[in-house]
């Protein structure tokens, strides 16, 4: 039973446009949400996080939105750049235990 779901295995976006990656969760006890980016043969790299008491957090080109009533969060990347091509993992935390989604592979097209 997946508590964190990323329903899109892959996404292709034109360079310069906005990339939107989505994530749904089922456990209302999650209190912290994170996005990680992973290149091949490397470990995941932390991108951005959001506490459950907020609905938006922004860091440069990356913005995470949290909709608690819908149990949904999204990561917006604008403008998208070639180096953004990677696998993105959504993760959620409850009591120091982090649950990851399966990831979405983002392709930035030239």
């Amino acid at each position: 039973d997946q508590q964190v779901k990323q329903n899109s295995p892959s996404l292709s976006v034109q360079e310069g446009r906005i990339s939107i990656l989505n994530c749904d969760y089922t456990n209302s006890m999650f209190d912290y949400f994170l996005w990680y980016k992973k290149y091949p043969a490397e470990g995941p790299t932390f991108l951005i996080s959001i506490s459950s008491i907020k609905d938006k957090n922004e860091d440069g080109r990356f913005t995470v939105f949290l909709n608690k009533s819908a149990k949904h969060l999204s990561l917006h990347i604008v403008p998208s750049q070639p180096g953004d091509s990677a696998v993105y993992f959504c993760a959620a935390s409850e009591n120091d235990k982090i649950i990851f989604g399966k990831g979405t592979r983002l392709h930035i097209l030239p």
Partner: protein
Amino acid sequence: DAGVTQSPTHPIKTRGQQVTLRCSPKSGHDTVSWYQQALGQGPQFIFQYYEEEERQRGNFPDRFSGHQFPNYSSELNVNALLLGDSALYLCASSWGGSNQPQHFGDGTRLSIL
């Protein structure tokens, strides 16, 4: 400033054997978590060590055990290896609990023949 380092890189074992994976956390970090990532899946939490004790554990059998040393480095031991244990094993370090963003190593790819 060294990040998280893991060894060995790619051990190859046979069914029934035992393996020990090692992790050195990022400088200044005192908490180590271990994850298993199967092909096409996200990382799955195995357990977390803090102050040399196991604080949290995911849904993994007792064949998976660990240890944390006084210098905060950690080992993951897997006994009686099964074919299904073939995966990428990731170590992540943080400070004071996993809600601090974790820094991941590049992983150990374990192959079981």
